[in-house]
């Protein structure tokens, strides 16, 4: 059935038709086949029971046969390879796969969720829901990007949302994994993907840029906010190519109460050149959760579509469209890393403050795309608030925040690349580690405390804990 060799090849094998193998009521490789769950363009999903674990699973079976294109099998092979290698809480768990040639199937965890496509039917969606879904989606994208996988077919159909708004990304048939041969490279027609969501560089035939997923994310976010598609549903290659230069109608022109910062995020994701977009999904997630950190540009202000002359300018810029240079996917996170600076604002030690500033400055100098989150801890709010504002909980909070901002001021880092956080906690070490994990920090900057053997210094134990348990590199600053 499936051989890529010429007809003279002795390697093609006579096998049973796939439809016969996976019939309801049969048992295949330890799975009891139940009814059909979903029929897609390229594959069928069947309910099945894993006889050994008694678990409900889904079997994905490629559509093969005379009338089916060979793409179905290549996409199936791609998904089998990539799903087996991916380990992410935001992707259905791979259980096992069958032999490509004789019993092609992928058995995976059956996740319960509603497709984003269905959610989109309930327009208009409230902004808080949009932002929550988008932030979680960014987290899920980040998770696969960190494993050197680019999805390349993100669209509402391929995103499942559960009752807690947690996200599952499905269908890796068009995905690219940096560590495996790309079976879809140079294959078939250019620009495979879904017309409304595909990035300009994919249309040009590129499959190795993780920022293509950022573009598709932008299209999805645009659709969630406005209920319409930014580049419509083009049917021709020329129609597709419009997104090389076209700027979509600003969301604020369609839904007037769209916050300017959200429009800024959407339009920046939709930039034709990958280098002009946000470089990582984790950056977008952080901005969605802290809108005040979004650097507003002209994109945020737009309430009307571009004028003819402005469009003309963009069209000229796109003549002979050359996609941006592709950074290696694993390295992009090292080029745009997040540094968590744990500054002890309870302790007034000018020398340590200065040394931490210098260390931060040096690290940021190496990474012009890098970001910094400054965090400090309040051990806990006072039980009895004093009469002046400075003694109240909010006063204490603000006091810490002012000190933190004062600490960061000499670094001259643009507002977009820096954020400030004060946490109230009894266990500062655990909170720093949690924050670093949650935001995929590349490095934690923390001050060492001077040796004071006779005193118990809480901050010192915090440092030790962070060094021992931190999820990333830890830079300890000493006096």
């Amino acid at each position, binding site marked *: 059935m*499936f*051989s*890529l*060799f010429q007809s003279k090849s002795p*390697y093609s094998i006579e096998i049973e038709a796939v439809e016969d193998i996976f019939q309801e009521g049969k048992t295949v490789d330890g799975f009891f086949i139940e009814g059909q769950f979903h029929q897609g363009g390229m594959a069928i999903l069947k309910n099945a029971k894993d006889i050994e674990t008694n678990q409900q699973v889904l079997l994905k079976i490629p559509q093969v046969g005379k009338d089916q294109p*060979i793409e179905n099998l*290549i996409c199936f*092979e791609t998904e*089998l*390879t990539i799903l087996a290698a991916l380990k992410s809480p935001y992707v259905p768990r791979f259980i*096992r796969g069958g032999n*490509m*040639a004789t019993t092609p199937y992928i058995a995976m965890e059956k996740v319960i969720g509603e497709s984003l496509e269905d959610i989109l039917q309930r327009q208009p969606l409230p902004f808080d829901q949009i932002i929550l879904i988008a932030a979680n989606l960014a987290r899920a994208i980040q998770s696969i990007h960190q494993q050197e996988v680019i999805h390349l077919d993100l669209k509402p159909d391929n995103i499942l949302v559960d009752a807690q708004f947690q996200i599952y990304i499905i269908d890796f048939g068009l995905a690219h994994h940096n*560590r*495996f*041969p*790309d*079976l879809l*490279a*140079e*294959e*078939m027609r250019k620009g495979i993907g879904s017309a409304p969501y595909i990035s300009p560089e994919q249309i040009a035939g590129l499959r190795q840029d993780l920022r293509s997923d950022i573009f598709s994310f932008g299209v999805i976010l645009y659709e969630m906010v406005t209920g319409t598609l930014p580049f419509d549903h083009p049917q021709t290659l020329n129609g597709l190519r419009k997104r090389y230069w076209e700027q979509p109608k600003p969301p604020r022109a369609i839904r007037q109460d769209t916050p300017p910062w959200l429009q800024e995020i959407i339009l920046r994701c939709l930039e034709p050149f990958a280098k002009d977009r946000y470089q990582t999904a984790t950056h977008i997630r952080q901005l969605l959760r802290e809108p005040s950190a979004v650097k507003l540009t002209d994109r945020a202000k737009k309430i009307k579509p571009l004028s003819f002359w402005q469009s003309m300018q963009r069209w000229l810029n796109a003549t002979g469209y050359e996609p941006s240079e592709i950074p290696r996917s694993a390295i992009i996170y090292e080029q745009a890393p997040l540094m968590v600076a744990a500054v002890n604002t309870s302790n007034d030690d000018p020398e340590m403050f200065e040394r931490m500033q210098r260390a931060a400055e040096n690290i940021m100098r190496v990474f012009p795309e890098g970001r910094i989150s400054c965090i400090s801890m309040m051990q806990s709010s006072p039980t009895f608030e004093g009469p002046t504002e400075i003694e109240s909980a909010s006063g204490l909070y603000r006091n810490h925040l002012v000190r933190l901002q004062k600490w960061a001021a000499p670094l001259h880092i643009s507002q977009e690349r820096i954020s400030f956080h004060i946490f109230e906690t009894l266990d500062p070490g655990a909170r720093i580690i949690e924050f670093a994990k949650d935001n995929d920090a590349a490095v934690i900057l923390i001050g060492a405390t001077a040796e004071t053997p006779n005193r118990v210094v809480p901050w010192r134990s915090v440092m030790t804990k962070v060094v021992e348990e931190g999820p990333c590199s830890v830079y300890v600053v000493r006096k």
Partner: protein
Amino acid sequence: MINPMNHHRIALFADIHSNLEAFAACLEHAQSQGATRFIFLGDLVGYNANPIEVLDHIMNLIASGVGIAIRGNHDTACVEPYFPKMNPIADAAITWTKEQLSTKHKHFLSELPPIFFEDDNCYVHASAYQPENWHYVTDGLSAWRSAEASGKIYTFSGHVHEQALYYQSSVGKLIRFAPHAGDAIPTGRHRRWVSIVGSLGQPRDGNPKANYALFDPVAQTMHFHRVDYDHLLAADKIKHAGLPNELALRLIQGI
């Protein structure tokens, strides 16, 4: 599930070039990974200082029925009276190697086949297309020519010192992939694959670690490996043997 340790894996060694330290390290690594068959893809000698020891070891493996060796261009140069000249440093190493080899070793080298077919596999030093013309496989087209000539699903070769895996797309064309050391790469039987396993005895990609690869015919996976070995000792031996100093530097820098 298939337990990867339960069945045979084939170790593929190319361009050992008399480097005993690298050979011993890769052999040990391959055995720890479950290798039970050992294929030597040519250029057993040349460049480094231990041709006799390396050949004796390989001859033992062949005698015990677990090894197959192919003849490479350097091996041929050591036994053919009229072999076209290579670069001066390589020629100096050939001249030196010839002086070390006994009649027994020369006979062994001259009897090696230039290409060998087994099951779905083809083993050859350079391209399977005119194997004794030592064509380099450096791109999709030369890989395609090699795969066409071999006619097998899997073609394994050396000669080019950097690791590469060429895979067949549905239009027949072969595409180059740079493998990452240690990954299990699915290499299904419905495509054709040309594996360049990389130089064991003289790595040239700026990394002094030795190259070799493992093939698992049951799981249908390829595993490219990079192995640390005492390259400073091997370089020292080159100096003491009176071989050109450049060869010692190459090992140290991996160029």
